[in-house]
């Protein structure tokens, strides 16, 4: 017998069996992800989510342009218990998948002059306080369920002088073999938001933005030697060149409104689109206790007039497994929606057509209307376009 196959069989079967057994024993005693009960950050939005660098703007610097554009970060922060929070924004100038907790390790890989730049960029902004008494924001207002008042958010200006340094850093890092910049798709620095409440609760969050080279096609000749492949140039035949087009910057998804169907039957028809009057809150939707309704978000890209809009398509680079060649693929955005409620339940944590076929979900009202919210419930929807774009919207529900 193939001894190695024995080991693999034993391991896979044992792991599978045990895992399956354990997953069958999930507990209902733990709080649900979709139920907002304590301090939560439901979303962080970067506007714009992607910033392009013009490689032709400064011929003396093949790395890129110095831009003065800003990226604005906003956070959807909630705590139904009210109270004040202290929050701190900072910038993580290295690619990190651990909320910049590995900053020191990654910084150490950079050249000394780059390290100085990185340290300057990573310095946190001053800590601020938000809450009912704060002038900066009314945190967790008494009618928080309705999302009236100002949701907690903060703005982090982001200057584009950083781009060149970042791109240079990643371009010169020998360990950054998987850097998006090496593959012309950019780099992913992050905004870090730290929240602290009452000296006991603390939460650290991370939101990336995409800094990409916007004009790889027109700047192809300037990229020679910087990339592990050759970008095709119009009118020139180069074997195995990669046909990248100049890039349209990504934008955040746009909610148009929601549709509601009575009951949880998948066959029940949806009502007409309900447009959010203020652009981000729809409703109220009237629901009797223990009743279910289906809620379906509508996005701008779903509208007939936007279906062919190229901003919903983008290029990726892929490796052909058999030939190991780099090929270009054009992908259409597929939006997912995360669901959160203040009371009652939603069937899905995330709706995404590749998993759930449709974007809608079923909301079931609680047995009793929430007394502290005068019967009001808020459903939050957070949309992601899978390349950094994000938007949220709320639906107000009144339990009868």
């Amino acid at each position, binding site marked *: *017998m193939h001894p190695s*196959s024995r080991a693999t*069989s034993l391991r896979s079967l*044992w792991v599978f069996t045990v895992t399956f057994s354990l997953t069958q024993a999930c*507990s209902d005693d733990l709080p649900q992800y979709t139920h907002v009960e304590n301090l939560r950050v439901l979303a962080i939005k970067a506007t714009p989510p992607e910033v392009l660098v013009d490689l032709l703007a400064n011929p003396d610097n093949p790395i890129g342009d110095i831009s003065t554009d800003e990226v604005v970060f906003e956070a959807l922060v909630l705590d139904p218990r009210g109270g004040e929070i202290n929050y701190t924004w900072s910038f993580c100038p290295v690619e990190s998948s*651990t909320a910049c*907790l590995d900053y020191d390790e990654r910084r150490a890989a950079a050249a000394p002059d780059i390290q100085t730049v990185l340290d300057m960029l990573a310095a946190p902004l001053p800590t601020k306080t938000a809450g009912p008494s704060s002038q900066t924001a009314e945190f967790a207002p008494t009618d928080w369920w309705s999302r009236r008042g100002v949701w907690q958010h903060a703005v982090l200006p982001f200057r584009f002088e950083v781009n060149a340094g970042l791109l240079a850093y990643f371009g010169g890092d020998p360990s950054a073999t998987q850097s998006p910049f090496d593959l012309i798709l950019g780099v992913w620095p992050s905004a870090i938001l730290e929240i602290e409440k009452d000296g006991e609760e603390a939460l650290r969050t991370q939101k990336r933005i995409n800094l990409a080279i916007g004009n790889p096609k027109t700047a192809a000749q300037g990229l020679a030697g910087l990339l592990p492949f050759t970008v095709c140039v119009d009118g020139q035949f180069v074997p195995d060149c990669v046909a990248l087009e100049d890039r349209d910057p990504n934008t955040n998804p746009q909610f148009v409104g929601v549709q509601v169907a009575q009951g949880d039957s998948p*066959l029940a028809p949806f009502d007409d689109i309900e447009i959010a009057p203020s652009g981000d809150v729809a409703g109220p939707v009237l629901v009797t206790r223990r009743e279910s309704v289906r809620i379906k978000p509508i996005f701008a890209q779903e509208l007939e007039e936007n279906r062919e809009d190229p901003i919903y398509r983008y290029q990726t680079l892929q490796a052909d497994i058999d030939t190991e060649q780099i090929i270009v693929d054009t992908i259409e955005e*597929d939006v997912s929606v995360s669901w959160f409620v203040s009371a009652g339940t939603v069937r899905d944590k995330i709706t995404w057509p590749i998993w759930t076929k449709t974007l809608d979900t079923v909301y079931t009202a609680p047995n009793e209307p929430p007394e502290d919210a005068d019967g009001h419930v808020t459903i939050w929807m957070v949309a992601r376009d899978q390349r950094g774009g*994000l938007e949220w919207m709320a639906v107000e529900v009144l339990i009868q």
Partner: protein
Amino acid sequence: MHEQPIGRKNMHCWAALAAIATFGPAATAAARSLAVPGILLAAIEEQNVPKTKREEAPPPVPKLTRPPELTEFVSATYPAELLASGTRGEVVLYIDITADGGVDKVEVVSSSDPAFAAPAMSAATKFRFIPAEIDFKPAAIRIEYRYVFEPEEIIPDAIAGEPSILESELLPVTFTGLVREAGNRKPVAAAVISINGAPVTETDADGRFDIRRAPGKLQVRVTTPYHQTYETDEVIGQDEQLQAKYYLVIKSTNPFEVVVRTRAERREVAKIQLQRQELEKVPGTFGDPVRVIENLPGMGRTPGGLGGALLVRGDRPSSTSVYLDGVDIPLLYHFGGLTSIINSQFLESIDFYPGGFGARYGEATAGVVEVHSRDLDCNMVRGAAKVDFIDASAYSCVPVGDWHIAAAARRSYVDLLIGAVLNSLPREEGEGSLTAAPYYWDYQIKAATVIDDHKIDLFAFGTDDQFKVIQTGSAESININFKLHLGTHRFLARDRWRLRDKMTLTSQIAPGFQLQNLSSEYAELDASTEFGTNIYTIDWREDFTFEATDWLTLRAGIDHRFGTAALNVVAPIPTDLVRFPRPTFDYTNTEEFGRDLSRYNHAYWLELELKPLESLRIVPGLRVERWDFYKSQKLSIMPRATVRWQFEEDMAIKVAYGLYEKLPEPNYLIDGTGNPGLAPERAHHFIGGYEYKITELIDLDLQGFYNLRSNIPTQSAAVRYENGREIRQNFDSAGEGYTYGMEILLRQLATADSNFYGWIAYTLSKSRRRDRATGLFQGGSFGDEPDKETQEYPSNFDQTHILTVVGQWVLPWGLEAGFRFRLVSGNPYTPRDAGIVYWDADRDTYRIDNSNVQRNSERMPMFHQLDVRVDKTWTYDLWKLTAYLEIINVYYQKNVEQYQYSYDYDKRVPLTLLPILPVLGLKGEF
């Protein structure tokens, strides 16, 4: 059919009751002329006859494959005075039979009158035997022999009205009979047939008897030492011949009745051998003998409650090999531990080596489990069937000419039960359904014969495990068809050839096929995934043994294994060179690729068993193995040695050392995911031990061990350059580990005359591992870079204390009862809330950075559990029925197997498995 002579003095060879009981029908021929013993009292040690009663069961041997057969009987001189007085007598002797069939020594155990002792001894000294065989080789043995003195004159005198011998011999045969054991129809040899109170004859080896009696009414009584006395009235009519069949009920359904009370003469110092009959009723194993090894010292408890993983001395399951009749098998259990893949009727014994195993075994760095199949012995059609809530199985064995052929099959029906339940649930319009359908089946077919000096086995077996999860889509959800399919089919041809005296050659060739397939289909999305491997193998082994002298035995062998595997993968492999982090995985974007891999291992091994002193055994060995797999070519030279010194008759010390290497698993060795340059995994085993035979029945085995492991594959972020091209190393061989500890086994052996059997096993150990934490452990994703430095931590299977107590009793009325109690330290784990928790807005999930967390820094709570089992057997003339009730976790201990965390790791709840689980089953045998 001839009539046994009766009344002739001293002619009762109380034939081979125990020989039959012990060795089954195959032994009956031998038993015909041999008064073998109630019990074979241990005795298998060459030229080392014990001197005290405790010493009468000297050390020991693996397996008695042929009992001795008396070929030359010598009558003893009847003491004149006792003959004159008509005194009957009985002398119980121990006879030490040499390996060439002569009598080396005779001891008197008891004598009804001292005057009988000397003539009985004198006569027995002149007996000649066909020698016993142990592991198919002639060997010395001690038997218990009962020599009966019975004067012929006593019969007519003692029983008034009974015909004299002379009168009887003038009559025709008017009464013939057949005596069998109730329940299994085995012939009962040497059963004494008494008519009207007087012993008249005894049954032959086939259980038959003939009696010459005048017509009339008879009171018939049939007796043996091991069966309940059978009494009945018969009438012989005028000019009639009476034919009768009697079924004797064995005095108990003692499961140990067929256990030869021998202690294996161990070359390996850490070997534990278990006989099938000792194992079938151990609680907590669902009647599966193989699972009993989980209760032995050195074997860790499998987390999760199901068992099945072979966690030997703190090492990974993949470090332990499983052999069936010398051939490596990929799977020992269905579904990772539910039940073993071989029907228990095919099992003879199980050898468990928690370390220090000999040069014969390869591909293991921790332990070895070898399962031995039974030599078929069905002189008549035999069968068995078993039904419980999990599966049903059937077994049958038939003689066909010179061949014995046995077959068995089993099928689980959990899928049918689940399907029936789910289908009975009401379903609304548009509502989907979810069906989980695990099932398995297996089969075994074996044919065996003996041709001259060749014992030939042909053994085919196969197993198939499937687990299906079918989600029928609703208007909202999609159709998902998930399937796990594992199958193995093997054919094993074996020839055990006795080349000449003290020289044997065992040749084996074993082709096989194995498949592993994990697939899923998403109909509406036109998407599917598959991970499939078809593996074809052929193994060839030659094992040669030559007892060159009294002090030197040579063992050598070759072990060739060839395999080719076709790997086919259809998977959502993220071919994007860079992909922005997203909340869920896109499985609709699949890629397909295949690989053909081949592997050729060839090993050559040699062992010398040296006995420079009678009490000293030294076994040096060497195994040389070469592996060729994909781009890896490795050679290992592995010296091993054991020394055992029996410095007292009942005490021995032992030491062992061995170097063990195996190639890492394929995924570590393939370009892209692994590194073909990895070194073979290595382990040094150092073992020291002490054995003490406390009483005739109770053994103590104490061992200390230290296993030092190295070259364990661990993730690496390093890159190397080939032709200017950067290649990620993925893994290197920097992983290390060690385990040290002690093991105690206190065991009461199973015997025919004891109604208790059990053991206490205790392991105290510490197991550590050093390697790099993966990116996943640190809170990253698959593919994230691992640590640069290795870190030492308690290994995942480090269980400091493992205590197992097993006891079984044979009770009256066909009842048996047993228990198993386990007390085991919790497994180490890394608390998921120990790191820094953060929320990733792009992935929409809470994650943990564990980079500064000590791995496996905490332990699960102590595990303890009591399992009990009760068997009730009803014995009928032609078959017997056993019903059993097994209760797992009797006192409902909520053992924590894992923790489940809240989404933000702020809260956790313990997950417990296996509440009280009663299992009811039926087993019929004929």
